[in-house]
């Protein structure tokens, strides 16, 4: 069962990327507070993204002819691992880098690729992912936003929600209905690239429980798209979106969301002369789990690098990973609360508060735990 997930080596020349990336990040993030770094791929900083773009660290795996780095998925794994380790504010370019750009390369026309990819690689243009709608979350195939053919191209009507960074992005790749109705399910879905500056689009940020506003409601009211807005084949949207999700679910961001908190806590333990046995046992447990998860994540990355589409394996590693991500704040809070009279360093206290509050999102974004477990069950032959 899942025998394909074997210990996988990152090639040495890809591993060699780690040192320059780390040197850059150490400098760029010097003095940034841990509760800010803990946001990492939720943290938006356009200037930072452009600085990465200048170094060739966006679109690392894209072909050089499109401004990419022409590197392997292993190199990207190393880059991403370093960005997450540092808690870099990568949200601006994250979604384009992770999924929109590879998606355009795979399904788009040469003209679409020529137009979008170089800008993405320079960190000038940001994308968001328009899948969820008010009535369509886990049941994504029920989307109602509709693109209707007309003489100028497509007319777009409907609404998306939870669209991360829609208010700060230039484009959205939206999953829309181009024929049939919600009852037609997977049939009749397509994907379109939407220029978010077009008339008829209203974007409203939604504030989350920590006070951040990263995701949005997006309304489309008679938005006129040109003919070339369609990406891939009309009616093939469901297949396309499924292949996109393997990229969305497999990365190290699904195991490291609490790692800045973990590091703050480990650094705090170091300041003790003798940490409690309980704290040490917890540290050892988490470090062991991380070693195994990281190995599994590299191995899924290896499957992707081989050109496979390990959808079930990615779901499996994401569920294991987000479980650890959510365990970390809960367990650290409990361990620290062992000594109710001790004062915590401010940075640790604020980071713990932030990560504890946002942790429920870890197993929702990118497909809920229950949905992933359903996919794994299908992989086991149970559905």
């Amino acid at each position, binding site marked *: *069962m899942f*025998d394909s*997930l074997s210990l996988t080596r990152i090639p040495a020349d890809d591993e060699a990327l780690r040192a320059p990336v780390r040197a850059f990040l150490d400098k760029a993030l010097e003095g940034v507070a841990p509760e800010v770094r803990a946001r990492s791929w939720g943290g938006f900083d356009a200037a930072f993204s452009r600085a990465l773009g200048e170094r060739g660290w966006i679109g690392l795996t894209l072909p050089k002819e499109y401004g990419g780095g022409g590197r392997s998925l292993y190199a990207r794994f190393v880059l991403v691992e370093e960005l997450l380790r540092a808690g870099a504010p990568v949200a601006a370019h994250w979604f384009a880098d992770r999924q929109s750009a590879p998606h355009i390369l795979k399904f788009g026309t040469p003209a679409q690729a020529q137009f979008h990819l170089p800008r993405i690689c320079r960190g000038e243009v940001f994308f968001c992912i328009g899948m969820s709608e008010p009535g369509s979350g886990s049941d994504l195939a029920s989307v109602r936003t509709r693109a209707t053919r007309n003489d100028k191209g497509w007319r777009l009507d409907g609404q998306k929600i939870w669209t991360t960074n829609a208010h700060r992005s230039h484009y959205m790749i939206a999953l829309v209905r181009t024929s049939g109705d919600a009852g037609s399910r997977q049939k009749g879905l397509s994907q379109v690239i939407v220029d978010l500056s077009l008339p008829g689009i209203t974007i409203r940020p939604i504030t989350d429980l920590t006070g951040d506003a990263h995701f949005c409601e997006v309304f489309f009211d008679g938005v006129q798209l040109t003919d070339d807005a369609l990406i891939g084949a009309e009616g093939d949207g469901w297949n396309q979106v499924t292949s996109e999700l393997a990229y969305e679910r497999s990365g190290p961001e699904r195991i490291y969301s609490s790692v800045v908190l973990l590091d703050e806590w480990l650094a705090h333990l*170091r300041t003790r002369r003798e940490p409690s046995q309980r704290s040490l046992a917890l540290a050892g*447990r988490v470090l062991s789990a991380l*070693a195994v998860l990281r190995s*599994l994540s590299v191995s899924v990355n290896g499957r992707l690098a081989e050109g496979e589409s390990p959808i079930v394996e990615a779901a499996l590693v994401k*569920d294991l990973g987000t479980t650890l991500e959510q365990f970390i704040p809960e367990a650290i809070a409990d361990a620290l609360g062992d000594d109710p009279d001790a004062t915590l360093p401010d940075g640790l206290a604020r980071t713990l508060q932030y990560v504890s509050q946002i942790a429920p999102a870890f197993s929702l974004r990118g497909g809920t735990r229950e949905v992933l477990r359903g996919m794994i*069950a299908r992989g086991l032959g*149970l559905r």
Partner: protein
Amino acid sequence: MDNEFGDAFGQLLADRCTPEAVRGIERGEGADALWHDLVESGFVDALVPEAQGGAGLSLHEVLPLVQACGYHALPLPFAETMAARAVLAHARRQWPDGPVTLDAIGDALPVEDRGALHAALTTAQIAGAAARVLEMSIAHAQQRTQFGKPIGSFQAVQHQLSVMAEHACAARMAAQLSFASASHLPDRTLAAMGKSVAGEAAAVLAAGSHAVHGAIGITAEFDLQLYTRRLLAWRVQGGSPSHWAMQVARQWWSGSHDRAIDFTLERLGAARF
């Protein structure tokens, strides 16, 4: 990680170490015949250097053999004997004939290495038995019907099996890390990390498989118990998950890395496979 010796040895155990054979040995009916076949196969000297008559394999190459012991609930210390012979051979000592436990190593190895070896062997056997109980549970869920449908069509059962699959996968990777060595001995940290994770997985797989099987799973007559009893025993033999988590933490404490990823990457860097 899978290889030809693994397949050949697995076939041997599938033929000779059947559930009936396991029960017979547990009843005290004697294991000489099975042991004889295992020795004849030559695998027991897999880790002994070629100059001393062995196959000169390294630990990562014999992982499939040890996993197979777990998968087939082998009631004999084949893995321990294989490891002890290798240690004694490297120490230029004689090894006793017949099956032995790691006690046979005596002072031929520092206690830390012996502990790590024990952890690695139990981890790999957990990975094997985990795969077995997962397969049995899936098969049962597909075949047993209640309320007019296979119980595997109920979402609560599906999710339980999915979680078991995740932990079986984690145990398998933990075993690969524990055995990721080019010598006959595991890396101490990787073995500690592996056992900490596999020990937790063992509990999930044992509990989950019994839940899915219902009452039949706890009968002596049904085969599931052959594997779950061992999963629970291997979980603590050679050190419980907490014991090994503490060892990992001590290594972190005595090292210089504060960042979790730095420590993890440094230790994963010791993997040879």
